[in-house]
């Protein structure tokens, strides 16, 4: 009676082994949590599992890509023409600004040379597609389609056409995870563009709001001030727009003003963003890699 046997095998309780396995797996999970929270020694494991998730992401992303492709191919001729005209005029404008920019850049580097300051290099920029946004509402994390194979590195800055979006926190081979500046865990060193006042912009968990909690009541900051990256954290290149101050609340009883700002990048609408290769950091990375290689050679020698 094979049917009866399978029924019984499904029903047979195996509670002792189950309890033991449960305790083991729970303990292992807690161990992983602690290791991951203390320091990130699990990056290789994450990358390996991430590789198995990659095909799923591609499949999940397929309807959106197909929809975009279909709407592009079926777009009417007049739509395309108007878009073409718009892009043409935009291109003219940006070109005009670029001409000025190169003159300004030359002037800037001349002035910097006169002041004996270090040269500001032009950053290399490349476009990446967003594959998915974190489905965990507690974290503002997204996945892009560029990985270590394309030269992406941890801590790399991500921007869109209007401002800073976030930075890379974990690189896989083909895709990487980035954290948005609005994530509650993220802090970004910024300065007020008007007067160079330095502070830190903290994420709040809301896409439209950053907090600047460390400004004294007498700090020179106003509504509509533009905040740009200061480059002092070492991760972000300096001078990219971050947010515009939306409210300054002064409370004489507190020692700090309550300042909040709205990110200029459309954090929850981007589908494409740009990665910045900052030359200094890339050199640092290379130097670090060489150090690592040297160390491993030494170990081999021993």
């Amino acid at each position, binding site marked *: 009676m094979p049917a009866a046997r399978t029924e019984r*095998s*499904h*029903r*047979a*309780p*195996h*509670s002792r082994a*189950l309890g033991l*396995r*449960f305790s083991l*797996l*729970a303990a*292992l*999970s*807690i*161990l*992983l*949590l602690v*290791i*991951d*929270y203390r320091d990130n020694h*699990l990056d290789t*494991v*994450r990358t390996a*599992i*991430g590789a*198995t*998730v990659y095909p*799923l*992401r591609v*499949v*999940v*992303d397929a309807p*959106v890509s197909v929809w975009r492709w279909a709407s592009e191919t079926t777009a009417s001729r007049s739509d395309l023409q108007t878009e073409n005209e718009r892009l043409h005029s935009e291109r003219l404008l940006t070109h005009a600004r670029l001409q000025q920019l190169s003159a300004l850049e030359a002037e800037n580097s001349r002035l910097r040379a006169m002041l004996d300051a270090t040269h500001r290099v032009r950053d290399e920029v490349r476009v990446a597609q967003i594959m*998915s*946004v*974190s*489905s*965990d*509402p*507690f*974290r503002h*994390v997204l*996945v892009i389609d560029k990985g270590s194979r394309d030269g992406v590195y941890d801590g790399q800055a991500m921007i869109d056409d209007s401002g800073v979006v976030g930075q890379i*926190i*974990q690189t896989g081979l083909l895709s990487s*995870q980035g954290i948005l500046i609005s994530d*509650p*865990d993220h802090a970004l060193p910024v300065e007020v563009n008007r007067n160079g006042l330095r502070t830190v912009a903290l994420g709040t*968990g809301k*896409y439209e709001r950053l907090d600047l909690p460390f400004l004294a009541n007498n700090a020179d900051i106003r509504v509509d001030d533009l905040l740009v990256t200061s480059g002092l954290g070492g991760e972000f290149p300096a001078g990219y727009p971050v947010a515009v101050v939306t409210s300054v609340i002064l409370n004489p009883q507190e020692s700090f003003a309550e300042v909040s700002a709205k990110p200029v990048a459309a954090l*929850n609408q981007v589908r494409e963003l740009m990665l910045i290769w900052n030359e200094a950091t890339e050199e640092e990375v290379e130097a670090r890699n060489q150090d690592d290689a040297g160390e491993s050679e030494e170990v081999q020698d021993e």
Partner: protein
Amino acid sequence: MSNDSASRRLPILTCIVASLMLAIAPMPGWAEAYRPDWVPLTLIFWSMLLPRTYSIGWAWIIGLILDVAQGTLFGQHALALVLIVYITVKFHLQIRVFPMLQMTATVFALLALYQFILFWINGVAGINSPAVAYWGPVLTGTIVWPLLSTIYGGIRYSARSSG
């Protein structure tokens, strides 16, 4: 026999993979907090029906995949899933024969426990978030459970009759 079990396993594996895909599918911002907990729902159903095959080992591995996919602390979803699947397997004989209303209530309790574990670990790690982000998935998950269990029941029935 092996062929038989393979043909029986395939539909269930498809369900699990589909639930993972639903869990990482992009959604508009406002709906993000109300995404049902597809993966726990799927694992509750199959571990309740086939506790020998789909038990806490599966839950742990799928939890780790979910952790990587969602960029949470490594082991967070794994721990929460292992706990609720353990409870499901432990009481699968009772839960299996519950009437639909009572079973839905049980699923509500399990999902609440699942979200509580996630909330607790986030709290210990110092990650704050609004309360709706925890309650939304529990409510929508409970609402979709009757429909989901009916679909899965159909899948199981057809898999059995063909295998």
